[in-house]
C-alpha cells in the first residue's frame, strides 16, 4: 500500500495529533512512514500543512510532489483548497466545513464550500457538530481522522489503538470520547459514500 496525505489546518487546530496517531498505527503495522511538520513562526495562527506518507515500500522524499497526493485531510475548508495542486487525479478531499476566520479578508463561506463541493471526490461536513453530538467540539480532529480513515489502507483497529496510545495519559474518559468521535466520523463518511 501507499498513501500520500496532505494534512491541513490553522496553527493550533491540532492536525499534528492526527499525524501522530496514524504514525503510531503505521509503525505497528510495520509500514514505512515519512511525515514533514511545520514548527516555529507559522504555528502562530497561520496556515499549517504537514505531508504524511505511508507505504509498504521505502519512501524517498519527505515532501509530496504536486499532483501526487491521495488525500487532503483538512480541519478547515479554505485550508483544504490551499493545497489542491498537490492532489492526484484520483485523490480525495476530506474536510471540515466550519471556517476558522482569523483574517479580515476571509472569503464568503458559501463560495468556499461551493468551490470545495464542485470538485469530484469530496467528503465535507460540519465535523464540529458531529464531535459535539458524541463527545466535545475539541474532538473534531478525531471526527476528521475517522472520515479520512475510510480512504486509508490501515486496519481500523490499529488506528483505534493509536488513539488509545496517544490519549492514554489523559485518562480512560478522554480515550473513549475520542474513539466515539473517530467512529462517528467514520460512520458519517461511509454513509456518504453509498
Amino acid at each position, binding site marked *: 500500500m501507499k498513501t500520500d496525505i496532505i494534512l491541513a489546518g490553522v496553527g493550533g487546530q491540532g492536525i499534528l495529533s492526527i499525524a501522530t496517531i496514524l504514525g503510531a498505527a503505521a509503525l505497528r503495522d510495520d509500514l514505512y512512514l515519512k511525515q514533514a511538520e511545520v514548527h516555529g513562526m*507559522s*504555528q502562530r*495562527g497561520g496556515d499549517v500543512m504537514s505531508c504524511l506518507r505511508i507505504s509498504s515500500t521505502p519512501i524517498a522524499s*519527505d515532501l509530496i*510532489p504536486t*499532483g501526487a497526493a491521495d488525500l487532503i485531510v483538512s480541519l478547515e475548508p479554505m485550508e483544504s483548497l490551499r493545497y489542491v495542486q498537490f*492532489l492526484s487525479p484520483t485523490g480525495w478531499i476530506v474536510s471540515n466545513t466550519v471556517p476558522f476566520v482569523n483574517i479580515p*479578508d476571509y*472569503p464568503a463561506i458559501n463560495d468556499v464550500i461551493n468551490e470545495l463541493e464542485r470538485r469530484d471526490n469530496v467528503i465535507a461536513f460540519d465535523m464540529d457538530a458531529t464531535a459535539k453530538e458524541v463527545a466535545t467540539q475539541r474532538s473534531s480532529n478525531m471526527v476528521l481522522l475517522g472520515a479520512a480513515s475510510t480512504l486509508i489502507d490501515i486496519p481500523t483497529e490499529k488506528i483505534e489503538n493509536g488513539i488509545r496510545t496517544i490519549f492514554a495519559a489523559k485518562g480512560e474518559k478522554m480515550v473513549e470520547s475520542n474513539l466515539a468521535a473517530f467512529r462517528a466520523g467514520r460512520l458519517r463518511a461511509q454513509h456518504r459514500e453509498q
Partner: protein
Amino acid sequence: MTMKTKKLLLGDEALALGAINAGLSGAYAYPGTPSTEILEFVQCNDVAKSRGIHSHWSSNEKTALEEALGMSFCGKRAIVSMKHVGLNVAADPFVNSAMTGAHGGLLVISADDPSMHSSQNEQDSRFYASFAMMPALEPSSQQEAYDMGTYGFSLSEELHLPVMIRMVTRLAHSRAVVETDENPENENELAYPANPRQWVLMPGNSRVRYRELIAQQADLERLSEESKFNRFQEGSNRRIGILVSGIAYNYVNECFPDGCPFPLLKISQYPLPRNMVAKLADSCDMVLVVEEGQPVIERGLRGLLDRGVSVRGKLDGTLPSSGELNPDNVAAAIAALVPDMKKQLLKASPEPAKIVAPRPPALCQGCGHRDVYAALNAALEEFPSPKVFGDIGCYTLGWLAPYNAIDTCVDMGASITMAKGAADAGQHPSVAIIGDSTFTHSGMTGLLDAINENTPMTVIISDNLTTGMTGGQESQGTGKIEEICLGLGVSPEHLMTIDSLPRNHAEMKTLFQQEFSYKGLSVIVSRRECIQTARRHAKK
C-alpha cells in the same frame, strides 16, 4: 548481535538519540527553529535523565558552544545545537575550536532553514565548516542522522577536531522510522588533552597549530573518500551525472522509483572527496549539482573560471537559487537537461484554487505583546516620526497589521543597539522592543553601551517569562530582568515594571509617554506570561 528497536523520530530527535546512545555527556543549546527539538529530546530522554547528562538551555549559542568545548577539553562527548543564524553568534568559538581541536568527541549541529520558514536568511552552514577547516556531515535521512551520532563522535576523536553536522528544516522536522540501538555506550572518563599547548591560542601556539590543521586537511579528504555516507552509484545513461548532497538525495530518488538511470554521487561528508567527484565527472557529459541551500558544492566544482567540466545547478538557473528544494523543482531540473524524460518526470497537477486568501501568522489572542503594541502605538501618536527598533521573537509579528508597530528586525539583540545608534543620530523618540529571552541572549551587552552614555532612548523589555516563538523553553532571565538592568547600571528612577494587560492600557500609555519625554535611558519591563505556556501550566 545487538538488538535494534524501531522508533518514529524527527530528524532532530534521531540525531539526539544517536548522540545519547554513543555515550553523550552534555548537550548545550539555545532554542532556534529548526534545531530546538534536539536539546528538548535530551531533556526528556530516560537514559539522559538517569545518567544526569547536561541538558540545560544556555544564554546564547556562543556560551553554549564554549560550554560544550569545555566538556570536550575534559575528554567527554558533547553536542551543541543551534539554528544557522545562531552559528553567526557562535562563530568566534566555532572557528577557534578547530584551532584548539577537540579532545572528547564534539559535534556542532547547525540547522539551516532554506525557504526561511522561521528565519531571516538562507545562509548555508557548510561555508562555515569549510572556512574553519572542519569536517562536516550532512545526513540525508533520519536514519543517517541517528547513525551520525556514533560516527560523528568517532570521527571527532580520531581527528581530534570538532565535527559539524548540518541539518535542514525538512530533515529536522520530518519524522520517519529509525532503527535504534538498545544499549547505550558508556560515557568517556574525565581525561585531559595530550597536547595542552594548542588549547592556549596565543600567537606562538596558534602558528604551530594552524600549520598542523592545514596539514590535516589531506586526512579529512581521505576520510571523506572512505566514508560510508558518501556513495557512488553507476548509471547506464551518461548524458548527465548527478552530484547530490544531504536531503536532496531523496528528491532525486523520488523522481526515479525504479532507480536513477544516471551515474550519481551522494555526498554526506565534507570536505568533498575529490577522487569520487572526478569519477562522476569522467562518467558523464554534464554534472547536475543538487544541493539544499546555497551552491557550496557547485561553486567548488565550477571554480572561478568555470571552464572545465560542464556544471549545472543553482548558479545557471537550472535549479531555483532561493527557496528549498522539493521533488517538483528537482524533477523540472532533470527534465530541462534531459528533455526526452519530460513526460516521465513532469506530472500534471490541478490548478491552485483562486479563492484561497493568505493566512499569515499572528500574535495569539490573549498575548501580552498585543497590549504592549496597542499602548505603544497610542503613546507614539503625537510624534511625527517615531522609530521603533524590533527584535527576534513572536513580537516581530507586531510589524504586521493591525499594529504595524516596528520599523526594523535584524538579529538577536539589534533592537537596543540600533535604537542607540538612531538616538546618537538625533532620532527621537527612539524605542527598542525586545523579549526577555532575546534580552539575555544578546541584549544585555548593548544595553551597557546605552547606560554608559545615558543615551536618550526607551527600551521596552516585553517579558513573557519564556522563549515563546520556539515553543516555550525556559528563559534564562526569568525573575531576574530588573536585577540585571540595575546591576548593569540602569537608573532606578527610569526602570519601570508594568503588567501588560488590556486593563492597564491607559497606564502603560502614560508610562511610555512619560519616559519618551526623559532625555536619557529608560527601561520599561512589561510583563505577562505567554498565553501558550500559561495554558500548559494551568493544565498541570
